[in-house]
């Protein structure tokens, strides 16, 4: 029966990119267990591909934060617009309820 320590050590030694990539995402949803954290850091240290992937995830996160700010900011022109008909319809509904 494997102890948690043995399992952890195996994890550190055997972690590959696919699992590392998954952990990079998981750590934003749940806390990683000690062996996951250590395995991930060790792997990323030596893997340029995974460092690039992590960078992509960070940029995506940054973009989403910025996207939220844009949506809530005044005077930003957004790509998607209400059609003139929808605009009229909604204005009418507002007027009717006023």
């Amino acid at each position, binding site marked *: 029966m494997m102890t948690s320590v043995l399992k952890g050590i195996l994890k550190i030694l055997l972690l*590959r*990119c*696919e*699992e590392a*990539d*998954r952990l990079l*995402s*998981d750590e*934003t*949803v*749940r806390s990683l267990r000690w062996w996951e954290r250590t395995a991930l850091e060790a792997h990323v240290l030596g893997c*340029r*591909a*995974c460092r*690039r*992937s992590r*960078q*992509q*995830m960070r*940029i*995506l*996160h*940054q*973009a*989403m*934060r*910025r*996207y*939220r700010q*844009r*949506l*809530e*900011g*005044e005077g*930003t*022109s*957004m*790509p*998607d*617009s*209400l059609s003139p008909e*929808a*605009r009229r*319809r*909604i*204005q009418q*509904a*507002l007027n009717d*309820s*006023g």
Partner: protein
Amino acid sequence: MATVRPNQPPASSTSPADPQRWVDQHGDALYGFAVSRLGDRALAEEAVQETFLAALRARDDFLGASSERTWLIGILKRKIVDQIRNARRTPPTSRLPEADPAAGELFERGYWKTRPAAWPRDPETWIERNDFWEALERCLARLPTRMRDAFCLRELDDLSTAKICTILGVSTDNLCTIMYRARVRLRVCLDATWFGGNRSGGR
């Protein structure tokens, strides 16, 4: 039914809660947000209309502490969460499909088939580009519904893991899987439509 509230912070160019100008000032922003969340123009229009009507009923509650836009987006977000919670487009399940094709194609025997592209660290290359935001919205709209819901509840609404799991009716493990698949697809999509062929100044 104008009311005067003491200690109201001075408004900008319009007085607080000015419904007559809502459609002009906020219609497009709310609509763009709704489309990226719901993936459907008709549903988005409906959500915007419902938001304005709800805001109209609650306009006396708008105390001007935040901007009008923030307040309206807050109402819209609640409408969207309600819709996600009620629609439950797929029944709550503990089992997800075994593999996602998008993720499966990137790895061979556990390793990256191709090294991921080095996206530019400097946000200046995308932050003021309208075509970047178009690309992002399009990539979001292309996500399967549940992936988009989960990803946006987290990244746009900042809801906790527990809250998202409740709304979607999934376990934490499932949410991890859904979030990862969403991120894989979004990165692949943005790579293809923006970063890949378009380093700064490409378009």
